[in-house]
Structure formats: structure tokens, C-alpha cells
């Protein structure tokens, strides 16, 4: 087994284990921490795919920002006394599980089916000739995708305004119906 293959299987184990913990842990804080773990694993997978910059951004944005927010909210509202972790209903539960399982199975089937026709081993060099992939990303982002970039700027502004407005609201969507 080569180092690369070992790394992949190790990271696959970490990510799948972390993801399983996310959905299995009763305490949402543990779920969140498991998700941080998973995201770091995914970032490492990005590195094995030569996406260095995106891996760094994954850590900064997901692990360092988004999940901090989640953890902070969970801690702020101190949700130890959770009702029940999973929704009720055995039949719907079974259907839901089956749906997710089938989806994964179908995708896997498709991959196996097509991988007989396509070369499965990833070509190792990512356009190595054209220089630093981070620069390449920048060049492409600010030429081809410039409109999306500006639109995201506006989106972030709108979200900032909206989130502040929401966070300040008194809470609740309707009058209490209980």
C-alpha cells in the first residue's frame, strides 16, 4: 500500500466516522465538534487532490468560522436538556433511512458502472505547467466568474443586514399557538 492510498483510507475513515458521530451524538455540541473534525478531514482530502488553497479556505471558513458560530450558539443557549434526538415514527424512519441508503447505493452503482469504462486512477498532475494553482484560481475567478463574485459580495451584504435584523427580532414566527 502506498502512502497516498494509506492517507486516503485513513482520511476516509476519519470523515465517515466523524460524519456518523454528527448524526448519532445526542448532545448537539458533540455533533458540532464531530463536524469540525469531519471538515478538517475533508480539507485534508482536498489537499490530497491538490486543492491547497481551497483546503485552507475550508478550514478558515467552515472549521474556523461557520462551526464556531454553531458551537457558540449551542453554548450560548445551553441546550443540555434536549427533548429527543431523533424524530418519532418507525415507518417513516425506516423509509427515510432506506431513501438515504438507496441514494448512496445508486450513486455508488453509477460510479462502479461507469468506472469500468473510464480510467479510475486520477491523473496526478493538475495542469502543472500553468504555475501556482492558487494564482490560477485567482486569475480564473476574476475573469470568468467576475459577475458571480460581485453578486456574492451583494449577497453577503444582504445577509449581514438580514441576519442583524433577524437576530434583533423578538423571536418566533407566529403568535404562540401552544
Amino acid at each position: 500500500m502506498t502512502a497516498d492510498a494509506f492517507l486516503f483510507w485513513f482520511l476516509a475513515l476519519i470523515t465517515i466516522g466523524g460524519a456518523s458521530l454528527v448524526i448519532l451524538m445526542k448532545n448537539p455540541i458533540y455533533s458540532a465538534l464531530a463536524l469540525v473534525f469531519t471538515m478538517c478531514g475533508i480539507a485534508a482530502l482536498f489537499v490530497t487532490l491538490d486543492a491547497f488553497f481551497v483546503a485552507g479556505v475550508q478550514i478558515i471558513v467552515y472549521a474556523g468560522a461557520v462551526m464556531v458560530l454553531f458551537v457558540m450558539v449551542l453554548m450560548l443557549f445551553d441546550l443540555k436538556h434536549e427533548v429527543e434526538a431523533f424524530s418519532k415514527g418507525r415507518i417513516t424512519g425506516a423509509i427515510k433511512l432506506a431513501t438515504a441508503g438507496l441514494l448512496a447505493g445508486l450513486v455508488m452503482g453509477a460510479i462502479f458502472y461507469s468506472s469500468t469504462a473510464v480510467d479510475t486512477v486520477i491523473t496526478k498532475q493538475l495542469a502543472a505547467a500553468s504555475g501556482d494553482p492558487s494564482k490560477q484560481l485567482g486569475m480564473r475567478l476574476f475573469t470568468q466568474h467576475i459577475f458571480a463574485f460581485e453578486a456574492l459580495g451583494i449577497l453577503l451584504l444582504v445577509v449581514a443586514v438580514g441576519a442583524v435584523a433577524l437576530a434583533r427580532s423578538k423571536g418566533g414566527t407566529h403568535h404562540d399557538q401552544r
Partner: protein
Amino acid sequence: MGQDILEITINSVKLILIFLMMVQAVPILVWLERRGSAFIQNRFGPNRVGPLGLVQLLADAVKFLTKEDFAPDKAVRSLFYAAPVFALIPATLAYAAIPMSTPISIAAFEAFGSTWGPYLFRVQGYEIGVGIVFILGVSSLAAYTILMAGWGSGSKFSLLGALRASAQVISYELALGLSIVGVIMMYGTFNLSEMIQAQQGPFQFSAFGYTIASTVDWIPNWGIFYQPIGFILFFAAAFAESNRLPFDLAEGEAELVAGFHTEYGGFKMLMFFIGEYGHMMIAAGLATTFFFGGYGIPGITAQELQQVIVGWGYADQTANILNAVLHFLMYNVKFAIFLWIFIHVRWTLPRFRYDQLMDLGWKTMLPWALANTILTAIVIYVVAA
């Protein structure tokens, strides 16, 4: 991690060494801090145990080890115990990415019946192409340590301290991240080694098609001359990131006792200390790298020094190693100066109020960092035109 078993071993040992270096640096820093503070405040400080009180470090470590391991009843034990361990990880991971000297190249040699090498060992944990992004990302994970400790303690003071500290850390991360955009623009790379390379040699730059160079050799081509505002912002933000005075709001004794580690004691406490000092070291290392030429020696480039050493009569291989040692010393001098500034500031400035702190981060440093970015962009654009 390497090509063959020797390289893997050396690289692993290197990593462990870096970690141990960080760990052992903490007692020294603690001693320095206590002596320094005493000096500043006209006291003696620890001076009984050993010469200049140097053995005090050992005594402290032993004292920490022998303390009772205690967790309050309300603590969430898993997080309570995991937090100090995790406090070590981000700091060390980030620090290991900072280059501390010129790489050492070892020519191929014969041993145990086979050919080994050639090797290129870097005096750093690992060379990363997107170094800055990696360091920023990893050090942003430090917020979890704080939150885990604060929440895991099950104490209100701890939680409030943790929330304050993490809010502070993330707020200043913005200013920190933005203050180095100008640096990235200057050097056009995320790689720390390449940045140091760019800062080698005497001061010179080109503008409007002319090359402007200093007439004196020893004025170095350091980033501080191009990014003074960026440096000030970066350094201030780094202070806040490491949770030290004047930014140690999380542990404002009068309000919050000791912040998120109120419930901690003994060795667990020491591990938080290591993490905190680790952040200080990262800040010092990064400031050195971005703005003060990294391991570079003013007045002479690494290649020139290599030539000089070869001229003294050493073989290339030996000269290479000597060169690396000299650069490593240079790095440590700069590094130590910054650490001393950290300590000095801590004992000089009073603590902020929390609203002042947040105002400073959001309403002063962020706009200034933005202004610095815009200014840099425009200058680069105009000068290159």
C-alpha cells in the same frame, strides 16, 4: 512524508523537536516574563532557585505535575479534559509551518549497502505552498479550545469568559486576515519561504520602470518598509489573538475571575499556558517572516553567506549546515526581540474595557486594514503602470 525511511524518520523527529522546542520555550518565557515584569516594576522576581532563579522553571513544572487532578461536578468531563490537549494542537501546527532557517541539502551518500538521498531538509515542520492560509486556518481553530474549556467547566464565569474570549479572537481575526492582504499583494504568494526569499538583499524596488535601490548595503529589503500600517495592524491584532494584555479581557479578574480557565488547575492549566505562549510565538514568528526578512541576515543574502563560508575553507556540505545555523540564530534573535516586546507591552499597558476592545477591532482596525489594502492596491497599480 518522505521518499524513504531515513527521510521519514528525520522529518518526524524534526516535527517532534519543534513541538518540544515550543513546550520547553514556555518555562523560559515564563521565567523571562516574571523577571522582566519584576525588573519593570522594580522588584526582584524569582531569584532564589538556581542561578538567576533559572531553575525556578523546573520547580514550577514539578509543582504543576504534583497538583491534584480535579474536575468540578458540573463539568462535562470529556470536554473538560480534552480542551487543554486541544489547546496545544493549533498553536504547534501553525508554528511548524514557519521557516526558521535556510534549507539544508545533503548530497547522496552510501550506507548500509544502498544509496541514500540526496535530501533537502527544511528547518521548519513542513513546507506548505499556501502557508499563510494554512496558518490562519489552523490558528482560527483555537476558538474551539476556549469554547470547549468554557462550556466544559459547567461554570457561568467560564462560559462567559469563553464567549468573550472567542468573540474577541474572531473579531481580531478579521483585522489580522485583512492586514496581510497587502503583504500577499506585495509578494504575490502565500508561501512563507518565497516571501523570505523576496526580502533578501539590500533595499530595492522598481517603480514606473525605474529601479530604486538603497546606496547602503545593510538596509535590508524588509516588508516593514513597504507595509508599515500593515505591520502595526498585524502586530496589534496578533496581541488580541493571543489573549494577552492589553487584550486579556477574557480573564478580567474583577469581572470574570480567570475567564474560561477558572476551573482549571495543575497541569491542565499549564497546557493552556503553553497554548497561549504558542500563539505569542506564532505572532512573533509571522511578524518576523512577513515584515523583518524572516531568517535573513541584513546586508548579506543566503547565497552570499554560503560563498563567504566556503571561502573560509569549509566543504560545501558543511558550509551549508553552518549557513543554516547562522540563519537560525538570526531568526531566533528577531524572534526573541518580538517575544520581549510582547512581554514588555504586557507590563506596560493597562487592560481595555470590553466595548473599547470590540470598538477597536471592528471600527478602527478593520477600516484601517481595509484602507491599507486599498492603498497598497492603488500604489501597486500606479507604480506598475
